[in-house]
């Protein structure tokens, strides 16, 4: 049976969760290499989605439907692969900083990163410096991402960076920040490695920093 990766990619692009599941299942049943299913079926579809979103041909809800479909496919394939063989672009710890409960933007970034192939550890909202530190120690990510919506809470981002320095971990992880009041200037001011103005560019930023 010829592989149906082209159709799988198309189903990711059109966000058809059930179709992605059944095509992935078929491929598994046909004895396809699970890593091939990911690299030749799921990821190419999501790459098209990313490019179309960037050029304004797709909207956020459509991207999220595609991401959801992609995730459903991944969940089927993942148990068949040794965890070290699962293709991952890198690990990112992400959270909304202390005192801030706003997490829609942060969750959007998580989904965008996941669909770009990153493994995301989401530490939730109201996350103090210790929580980020703990996650860095436990998961050893390449990047940590902090989000804030409020001009007061954004100041807490610096506390996390300071704590990482005190613990001697600052050099081992890239720090990126985002949120409505955040700017490149602010990122420079507090010594972050990068700033992304929107969810779409966060994945590009990680790619650049981890290159």
């Amino acid at each position: 049976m010829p592989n149906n990766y082209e159709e799988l990619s198309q189903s990711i692009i059109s966000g058809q969760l059930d179709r992605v599941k059944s095509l992935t299942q078929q491929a598994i049943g046909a004895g396809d290499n699970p890593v091939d299913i990911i690299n030749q079926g799921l990821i190419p579809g999501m790459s098209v989605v990313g490019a179309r979103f960037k050029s304004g041909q797709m909207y956020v809800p459509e991207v999220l439907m595609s991401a959801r479909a992609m995730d459903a496919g991944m969940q089927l394939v993942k148990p068949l692969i040794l965890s070290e063989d699962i293709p991952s672009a890198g690990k990112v710890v992400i959270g909304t900083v202390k005192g801030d409960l706003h997490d829609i933007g942060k969750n959007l970034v998580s989904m965008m990163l996941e669909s770009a192939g990153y493994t995301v550890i989401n530490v939730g909202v109201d996350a103090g410096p210790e929580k980020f530190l703990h996650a860095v120690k436990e998961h050893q990510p390449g990047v940590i991402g902090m989000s804030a919506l409020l001009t007061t809470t954004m100041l807490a981002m610096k506390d996390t960076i300071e704590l990482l320095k005190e613990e001697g971990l600052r050099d081992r992880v890239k720090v990126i920040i985002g949120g409505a009041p955040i700017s490149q200037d602010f990122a420079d001011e507090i010594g972050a490695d990068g700033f992304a103005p929107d969810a779409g560019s966060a994945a590009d930023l990680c790619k650049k920093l981890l290159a």
Partner: protein
Amino acid sequence: MTLSKSQYVRANYQVNATPQLKMLSDDQCENILNGALEVLERTGAEIHSEEALEIFKKGGCWVDGNIVRFPSHLIEWAIRSAPSRIVISNQKGERTLFLEGQNVYYGPGPTNTYTIDPFTGERRRPRKSDTVRAAKVIDALPNISYAMDCGTVMDVTPTLSDVHAFQAMLENTNKPIIHWGFGIDQYQDIIDMAAVVAGGLEALQKNPFILLYSESSPPLRHSAEAIDKAIFAAKNNIPIVYTPCTFAGGVAPATMAATLVIAVADSLVGLVAGQLVRKGSGFVMGGLISTMDMSSTILSYGAAELSLLSAGLTAVARYMKIPMFSTGGCTDSKVIDTQMGLEAAFSILVAGLSGANLIHDCSYMEYGATSSLELMTMDDEIIGMVKRILEGVKVDDEHLALDVINKVGPGGHYLAEDHTMAHFREFWSSSLINRLRYDGWKAEGSKTMGQRVKEKTQDIINNHKPEPKPDHVLREIQAIVDRAEAREANKQ
């Protein structure tokens, strides 16, 4: 010349004294309100404040961890218990803003993270001196009825940005002020400063010139900061604007009706908290309601839906007889340009027609990220035009002028008539809109609207002298700022 009597012998004569825009019928409003009551009774709201949870529990809500479910009768009681009218004075104690019925008052907006310098054109972080400038411009513009800070001041102790901005406004305008605070400590500072100006806390409560301002985080989530401020305001008997920022497709479903349901439900949470603390405490419902742009994910300040939804929310507020805080005069544009002008004009007109009592953000550019005093100056002009439209067409014997028409007769002109003299000043005349003939416009330097707006803004900042407050008042205000600085220094 005597006017003849009316030709009509009238019965059941109806008048549109102003143009009419009612986005939703009473039945639709009832439908939206019932939807919000159902959401609060069934789904409930997440409350992140121990004090608020205690108040809701004692008030008869079902509290399950952080989730509070509200019995409809309690909300209906709170709606009836809140005043349908709140009168706000200026800082001299003169009653100026009558938040009742469909009276409309326009003003700027708060807490932008950037401001556009009206002299250099630079987009940069706001400083305390920018709020000083803003207050002067607010004080000078006749159609701007109250002050807000026009940007979070960032060259002071970060946790006292609110207190410093309030001081800057008190020192540079006598108009009423709507102001936010980071937390309860700062709210206390602000009330203390306001009490100095009003001549004591009781005088301030009797005749408030401030409204406190709090934003919750939809959908159905209220941080301690947000809900505690509503409680604090009620305890201190100072009216509050409680304003969720609800955007369709993001924190609410993508449909307009459901977005209204979420906005109403989140406002009602703040209302119930305040009324349980003090029956009859002043409450103004908000607020900011629009769509999320599905490409850029911004909360759009220029969307047609901002006007549509704001007018819808205003209709529901009016149905509940709760004063309304709405939005207009704002834009997603980054610069002083045509997009800015058209988005600001549309939203000012629709908000005015909707009859929202307080219409804010007449200074918001770049989807709220940046404030612009030039936009506020231009909005002042637009508001002037809109207010003229809101005056409507008077239809009576004097205004029908049938005798004058008969006297002048076919082919004549009206330029030299007493009737014209008596009424032509009712035409709206502008200071910024240019209606010169071409040569006249050229002789004055061929200036664009943007240039005229900039010049007027700069002129106000350079030359307007707000009525100063007595020295002892200014000293007492400074003492409260110093006290706040000492407190924050101790927290470090």
